[in-house]
């Protein structure tokens, strides 16, 4: 049941109140994303072949991980010409069970876990996807929404360079579509070129061979496409679609990164490249969240978008929004597509954006204590901003609701995030709408006050405050804001938001351990046991993007260039302090020195930094396969 003070503000952002818990949950989330890509935003239902009849209860139950592994191992062993005796078949089954099959959400007290899908970055793997045992959070919806218009524009304009199209081609490695994925397609069929898959990644090929083997009565084949039920039972829901992006520039950055990585990683194995893509997605999403916080906080403070944000909004928002107006396809053909993440787009954002949320990250290990402490302070600063953001986010959603009601009354179109505060202020100053607005706010306050988390002290003085603010929409809005603030921040529920941010920064799931994808590592104080860092996979992904970006410009990337790129594009500071930080200069100097040197050592150890000279300026940061 919806609570008076909304915790989840789908009108604004889809981030759930509950973070993704474990790495397996993250993998299920990614499976859901792959499924959204193939179905063009529709949510699939559980497939019959992923269930089995439970003889005891007489009901269907999900296929377990053991059963799925057994089925696939049998298929591998029975491939015509395959040489694998029973002992080897058992070895393969154990490998599938432990490394390939993703366990789903536990149901009841059964000893074996249901199978949620397969850990291969390929559309064919969706044959074994069981959405019934996954609990979708926010990642899949965000990723798909962020790439959705690329798929549409790619089809309209016939451009295969867009990030969404490139990602689809990546997931369809070795597939030749006979009927292509489309928003309302009831079937997608293909043929499989095993040679191509085997050349790229033999492990993936082994699983694919199992999935494309001769079908049995229990388990179909994906040799010519997924079962029709996969598409026919899938459905579109509005709850999983973003209506607008707080920071369109960050989404364009994400698209650009995907384009570059998929353009440059031709000699990298399929699974390895998928890891880089996942890392790129998750970190861009985290940075979108951080930058979006800043945008929303500024919007609430200034009551209008800053100039740079407004420019960015004007340039990209219309073509980024998954749900657009009916005429935009025509506009794309006539005027071009603005969200293709071309080099000029990111250059424009680099130059235009002035709301970078700069944070210091420890590029070393937790043993680099000064850098670790400074990075912990950065995380604590983010936490403080998160508190403001959470209140602002909820209040903005309420403001949108109030504004929509007034707009209906006066016969106008409901304002968007961009102009909601300006419209409210305008109506508050207009004698024709002032009273209506006051009444609406008063109703909101009455409703908000019924939330069980509003402290008694607030309720005690509420009547007096309402009387004093009566007839003044701005004062009533402030009163509503105070109620929201007290209800959210004074309860334990706020820790959920902190966990959410931690999961965003931690690589997709709660950082119970250091995830190589993430920007968070263990080490801190009892209150904040983490600090911001750049873990190995994240570092490689950033290097890949920035090195490929530099290569696209026919320029080399130096070590200092990498540090500058991290700062300018992602607001990640490796050897400097963000403005307004309270750290002492001594601590900063030590932390900066530690972090910078550790970064150099790590890049060197990871084979990403090549030094040609003892001179600090003459070195090259390259990603795999790139020529230095």
């Amino acid at each position, binding site marked *: 049941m919806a609570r008076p003070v909304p915790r989840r503000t789908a009108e604004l952002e889809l981030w759930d109140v509950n973070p993704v818990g474990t790495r397996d949950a993250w993998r299920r989330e990614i499976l859901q994303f792959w499924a959204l890509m193939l179905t063009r935003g529709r949510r699939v239902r559980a497939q019959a072949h992923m269930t089995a009849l439970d003889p005891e209860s007489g009901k269907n139950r999900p296929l377990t991980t053991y059963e799925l592994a057994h089925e696939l191992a049998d298929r591998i062993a029975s491939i015509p010409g395959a*040489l694998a005796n029973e002992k080897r078949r058992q070895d*393969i089954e154990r490998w599938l069970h432990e*490394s390939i099959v993703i366990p789903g959400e536990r149901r009841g007290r059964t000893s074996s876990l249901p199978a949620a899908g397969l850990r291969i970055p390929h559309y064919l793997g969706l044959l074994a996807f069981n959405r019934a045992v996954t609990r979708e959070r926010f990642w899949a919806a965000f990723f798909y929404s962020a790439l959705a218009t690329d798929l549409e524009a790619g089809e309209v304009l016939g451009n295969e360079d867009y990030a969404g199209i490139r990602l689809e081609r990546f997931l369809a490695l070795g597939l030749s579509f006979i009927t292509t994925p489309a928003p309302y397609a009831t079937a997608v069929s293909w043929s499989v070129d095993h040679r191509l898959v085997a050349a790229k990644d033999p492990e993936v090929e082994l699983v694919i061979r199992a999935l494309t083997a001769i079908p049995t009565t229990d388990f179909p084949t994906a040799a010519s496409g997924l079962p029709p039920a996969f598409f026919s039972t899938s459905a579109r829901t509005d709850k999983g679609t973003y209506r607008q992006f707080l920071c369109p520039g960050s989404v364009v950055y994400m698209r650009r990164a995907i384009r570059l990585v998929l353009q440059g990683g031709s000699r990298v194995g399929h699974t390895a490249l998928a890891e880089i893509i996942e890392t790129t997605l998750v970190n861009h999403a985290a940075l979108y969240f951080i930058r979006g916080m800043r945008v929303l906080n500024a919007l609430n403070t200034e009551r209008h978008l800053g100039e740079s944000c407004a420019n960015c909004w004007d340039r990209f928002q219309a073509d980024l929004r998954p749900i657009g107006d009916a005429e935009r396809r025509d506009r794309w053909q006539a005027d071009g597509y603005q969200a293709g993440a071309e080099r000029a787009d990111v250059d424009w954002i680099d130059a235009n954006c002035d709301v970078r949320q700069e944070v210091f990250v420890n590029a070393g290990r937790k043993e680099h204590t000064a850098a670790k402490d400074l990075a912990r302070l950065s995380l604590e600063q983010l936490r403080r901003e998160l508190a403001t953001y959470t209140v602002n986010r909820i209040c903005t959603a309420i403001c949108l609701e109030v504004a929509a009601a007034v707009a209906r009354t006066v016969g106008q179109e409901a304002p968007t995030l961009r102009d909601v505060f300006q419209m409210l202020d305008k109506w508050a100053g207009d004698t024709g709408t002032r009273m209506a607005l006051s009444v609406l706010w008063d109703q909101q306050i009455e409703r908000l006050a019924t939330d069980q988390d509003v402290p008694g002290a607030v309720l005690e003085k509420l009547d007096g405050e309402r009387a004093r603010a009566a007839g003044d929409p701005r004062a009533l809005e402030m009163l509503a804001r105070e109620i929201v603030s007290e209800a959210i921040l004074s309860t334990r529920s706020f820790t959920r938001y902190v966990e959410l941010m931690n999961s965003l920064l931690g690589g997709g799931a709660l950082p119970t351990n250091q995830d190589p994808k993430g920007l968070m590592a263990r080490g801190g104080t009892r209150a904040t046991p983490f600090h911001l860092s750049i873990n190995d996979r994240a570092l490689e992904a950033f290097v890949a993007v920035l090195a490929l970006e530099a290569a696209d410009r026919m320029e080399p990337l130096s070590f200092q260039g990498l540090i500058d790129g991290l700062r300018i594009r992602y607001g990640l500071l490796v050897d400097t302090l963000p403005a307004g930080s309270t750290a002492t200069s001594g601590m900063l100097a030590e932390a900066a020195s530690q972090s910078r040197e550790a970064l150099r050592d790590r890049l060197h150890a990871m*084979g990403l930094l090549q030094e040609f000279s003892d*001179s600090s300026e003459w070195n090259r940061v390259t990603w795999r396969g790139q020529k230095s």
Partner: protein
Amino acid sequence: MSTNGPFGPHGIDCHCHSFYTLRDLRLEPQSLDGLAKAVGGAGVNTSIQVATSRMRSVDEGLRQAFAIGVGVLAKRECATSSADVPPVGWRTHARLGFSTAAERWPDDLDPAEWASLFAGTLRPNAAQKSADLGAIGSSTLTNLIRDGHDRDASPYDPGPDTVDLYRVREWSVQETMRVLAISRQRIGGWLDPSEVGVRAIAREIGCHPLELLAFSQHLARCDAGFERPNRVADSVLREYPRGSEGALSRRLAVALTDESELLDVDQTEHDLIDVQDTPLSLPLEVPPAPEDGGPNPLGVVRRLFPGGSGTRGRPPIVYTPTQLETTLLPVLRTGPQTLVVLSGNAGDGKTAFIETALRASGTPVVGGTNEYHILLEGHPYFVVLDGSEDSATRTNDDLLTNAFGRFRGDAPVLPDRGTIIAINKGRLLNFLETHRDEYEFLWRVVTNRFVGGTVLAGHEYVLIDLNDRSVLAPDSTSSIFAGIARRLGEWDAWERECRKCDAIDVCPARFNAMALRSPRVREQMWKTLAAADLDDRVHVTVRHIVTKLATSVVGDARCPDVRSQARSGRTFLPSNFLYTSLFATRSGDAHAEAAAMDRIVAAYDPTEQGAPRRDRQVAYLVLRGALQEVLGQAGETPDLAGLKAQSWAIASSSIDEEPPAGEPEYRLRVLDLVRHASRRMYLLEPDHPLAPADPVATMDDFIRIGRGDADDQLLLTRLIASLNATLGIEPGRFQELLAPRDYSEGLRGTGFAAMVPRSRFALAPANALGNEYEERPYLEAWPRALRLAARDVDGVVVAAIALPLLMFEVIDRAGRGFRPTSQTERSYIVRLNGFYRRLAEHAWLEQPTYALYERGQVRARATIQPDLIAFAEA
């Protein structure tokens, strides 16, 4: 142009150093003649400036005489400028009114330090101490300072009769003040009767040296309360009690400058003013004489300590010509003038080479001067000591434009003037990049050499990166290290000076130096230092070797302390001897570079390698008092006494005894002694059956691969087996390298690991940066790492990793069943992670087979191809 050194206070327009000649120095005729001959040229008419530049090669006694004379001369009013004397504060490096680098002090010594050195020259020698007072008075200054050391002589004491003889109690105030002035200013305290410098002072103020000595002693005795002062001494001591030497010295300096201003004591307080702090700077480095008057060779060697004056430019005693001097310099002398660029780290020898080039052209090295125009056998060269330096008069860009201007254009040139320049690579690259269009060809040459690591053909320019040089290459007999060690061991002062010292037979420093004469000892030291050189944690420079050898030989010893300890009969600790001091790390060392070197060398201490059986055998002998079994038949050497004393002490005690307060317990003492004995065997008697093994077993293989005379395939097979062993695979089981996707997890869990065939790998020598090694002309060099590279069938490098010696050793040990234990060893294993990731995640054009592993065991070998899926026994 300003003046430098002692004439500094004369002001920026002073040219006194070129105006005054040797003749103007108030020296003894013998000293003057000696100096005139030594400096050559115009003899006594040689200017102070020229004489200063030639002073390095002059006999030490004459140098001291020269120093004193110049110091006195500099007190005079400036003869060449009427400009006001600028005020100069003590301990200031940038003097007021002197803003450019060239106008600063020619080195890092500040005026106070110069003054200290100056004072140090006024020390007695042994002959003087044993001579009677009459002999002092008639001796020449040179003789007073240099000759006749007698270690047995006790400090001279004129005695109370002498004081009475010269009736010092009747001295006038003026006489007293003059003596005080000299005493304070030159010596910094009451005149010590043993100071022979009193003769010079006495001569300067016109009294008899004996008077001066007598008065000084009287004053000191009064000050100490042993004698009752007369009226004059009383008033002086009241006015200038102990502790006010500094103020007194400065105030009396004024009195000295003008005889007419000699003061009455009553007026002193009002008439004396604080004057400028006249820096008593000298253009020479004068080793301090020891306080006991004995010989002081260690004082000279200590100049080679970290931060010492001997570590800048060409070092004394141990200067060893390198290929730069032996091959490049002749080319510059005979060939057409060209461009020579020297780059490298501090201490690599850039300045030393340039100094040699300057000497070869007959050009004196002038402190603080950065640019020279020289002629090398008729070939003009513009020489820049530091191409990265800024000056107030012109920008660095101007300097570089001057240096490189003749090499503009898009083709090589044969200029009318060559350039020899030492410059930071980054600065050079930046300059050329900024002016890339102007210096098109030079830009290509420099980037090819310093960035790409290749040499562009078709030009005669010489680009030297001293980072590529190894002071340990190629071996223990012909490396720069060998030259330095040999020269230090064979320094003549170990004979000439030490023969005059009564501690010669027990002195640990001399023992250490004598040990250096042995090629076997040098070879053992070379092994240790070569390991450090091939360790990628430090770039070993010439300066590193010089300071390391000097500190290892001398340690903390000072000649007077050695003599004092020898007289007392106390034995010297084993830590004073080379075999232990080589591995010592000095705490509180302000020189980070040297400290880093110490730490790395300490990591190669042979006793740190676990050899339980050998250690037990040595300990058994030590505990039984049978130390001779361990120490061999080398005869009675100075270190044996200390070792034996420790051994006997241990043998006569027991593990059950409570150690004395502050003393280590029994077991620690045993371990300590075993270590000393083991190190001694390693360094001095490496063939002893109980001598520890070399700390790096693979060094020979490593060097052989670098030289190209090893069986690469055999070593590659061994390396792959060792790498597989780090994953728990028994050596020899697979010919291929197993590459799991996550090397840090090893073969935990279950998954497929690519089995990359040996034919895909190549092992090649590499430089310190991990790039392919190339021979460089004019440099002693060797590969500092091995480069293991994997290539796909199309030749694309899939992954490459540089293996420095220690990493090679760690991997090899893994093949022998050892697991990395130390932090450093583990960090090397972490480095492999990136290499393995690239191997495992590469889309190979020619599919490798795969190992299906499960919980550390390889279950099957898998072939996964479109037309064949096969699982076979591993």
